[in-house]
């Protein structure tokens, strides 16, 4: 069913953004490839560099490991994996980003570093939201932010459950939405939409298949 619904489109973004500096995972203005050049449509929104004292400070501190952009009015940092968890801790302690809104991941199978792990943070005193993104390879692990925000506990468990990304230092990293013995991580792009762990279904539910 997924096949019929999918209209013929070019594959996901990677080829538009394979830059030599792999950590700069900015989304370029790829509106053009999707639209015919004949229609005089205005260029779509482009991520623009984000300038602010905060950015200046961190750029000075971390140099090329950190890149700051703004897209559609939303600021984000694209950082090196080595900066995690320091940058997160700094953001909480010094910049008062005390509320971790969400932790999630995106899977780009064509890319060398397949996973984008995204933290969305919010600061009550500043009324600002910021995203922090980093790229990790398949099978690599990433430090857990549970010691920084207590809310990261279940959020990281869900990322682990859905993507298989290990978080070092998480007190109890186990599946949260899927049953404990499930094999496979569904939100990866190589997991089919209709796929299920038939073995688990047969053992635990006693039926042939969940379909």
């Amino acid at each position, binding site marked *: 069913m997924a096949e019929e619904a999918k209209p013929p489109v070019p594959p996901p973004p990677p080829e538009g953004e394979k830059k030599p500096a792999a950590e700069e995972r900015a989304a370029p203005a790829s509106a053009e490839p*999707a639209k015919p050049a004949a229609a005089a449509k205005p260029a779509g929104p482009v991520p623009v560099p984000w300038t602010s004292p905060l950015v200046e400070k961190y750029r000075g501190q971390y140099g090329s490991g950190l890149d700051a952009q703004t*897209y*559609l009015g939303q600021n984000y940092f694209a950082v090196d994996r080595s900066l995690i968890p320091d940058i997160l801790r700094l953001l909480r302690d010094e910049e008062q980003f005390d509320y971790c809104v969400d932790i999630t991941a995106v899977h780009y199978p064509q890319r060398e570093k397949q996973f984008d792990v995204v933290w969305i943070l919010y600061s009550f005193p500043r009324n600002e939201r910021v995203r922090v993104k980093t790229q990790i390879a398949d099978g690599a692990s990433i430090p857990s932010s549970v010691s920084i925000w*207590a*809310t990261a506990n279940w959020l990281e468990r869900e990322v682990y459950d859905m993507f298989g990304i290990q978080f070092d230092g998480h007190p109890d990293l186990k599946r949260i939405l899927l049953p404990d013995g499930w094999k496979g991580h569904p939100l990866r792009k190589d997991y089919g939409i209709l796929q299920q762990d038939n073995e688990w279904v047969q053992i635990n539910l006693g039926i042939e298949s969940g379909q």
Partner: protein
Amino acid sequence: MNDSTHDASSRALSNLDLETPEKPYLDSNELIINMGPQHPATHGVLRVILKLDGEKVLGTECVIGYLHRGVEKIAENRTYTMFNPYVDRMDYVAAVSNGLGYCEAVEKLMNVEAPARAKYIRVILTELNRIASHQLWLGTHALDIGAMTPLFYTFRDREEILKIFEKYCGARLTTHAFRIGGCQYETYAGFEKEVKNFLTFVAPKIDEYEELLTTNRIWIARTKNVGVISAADAIALGVTGPVLRASGVKWDLRKAQPYAAYSEFDFDIPTGTNGDTYDRYLVRMAEMRQSLRIIEQAVNRIPEGPIMAKVPKIIKPPVGEIYHSIEAPKGELGYFIVSDGSTQPYRLRVRPPSFVNLQALDTMVRGLLVADVVAVIGTIDIVLGEVDR
């Protein structure tokens, strides 16, 4: 008893035992009790494993995922327009809010804005849904604590809201009321009049609920100082919505980062002081009244104009990412959408308020008695459809 649940229980034990993970299975004073997944008071399929010392709760573990339907995976296989109805099914009690968040997120990604009339209609329907959601919450929460009558009162009054929804978009619960770019349906003839009638109808009813419960000594005894969470804990745990406001943090996304037409209306943010169940009850009652205020202001001056912005028939947002969140009745409902330029989202992440709020259950019930666990689960106001997606 199959393998997976046995695994969960024994691992749950080691998880709860924070001091000495190698303790024997059952201390003579400690008891592991399982609540759910089928239980009259867990508001859905939620399993809570309690570790008790006599009657006191030492720790809890929530086992969720019984209602996991893979909504985020489905989103990657549906176009943006086709995915719109799926969104209602997450928090099915406040479906209109879900739809609002999603439509606004995609509109932001497409860099379009809904016209003013559509925004007003959206605000009115969303606030009506907030009242309906809080009414359902009140009925079920009171029932858990033993007061069986408010349930019927709130459900009867909720009917009026559902009738308005049904006349507007044909559905009572999973409304699919909004479209990307605005609203599809024009307001029906008599919409304003019916909404105004509803306002006069329901205001004394909310007073009726308060009369039954707010000064009732038994209610106060069951809810005061039960399930306390401090403001600092709440922020650290990412709790939002009435739970956060009852702990004293005066923060509401409708005021902090206004969306739809909320910046044009005048309303207050009720807060509590203690962060206990009683405060959460008061905050939600006050929120219902504030919603009435908003609706009253909105329905009197719905602007004329188109209800749909100029969006192409096939929605293809440019490549990029967006995070947009709204103040759903349960908390901050956020959508993180990654677009690859195609008609289907590359990644759609729903940040569910109930999921994050439920995590705070463990902090809230430490040291309480077993009977209070039921009250605290009710006061967090979870909908399992949203927790599990």
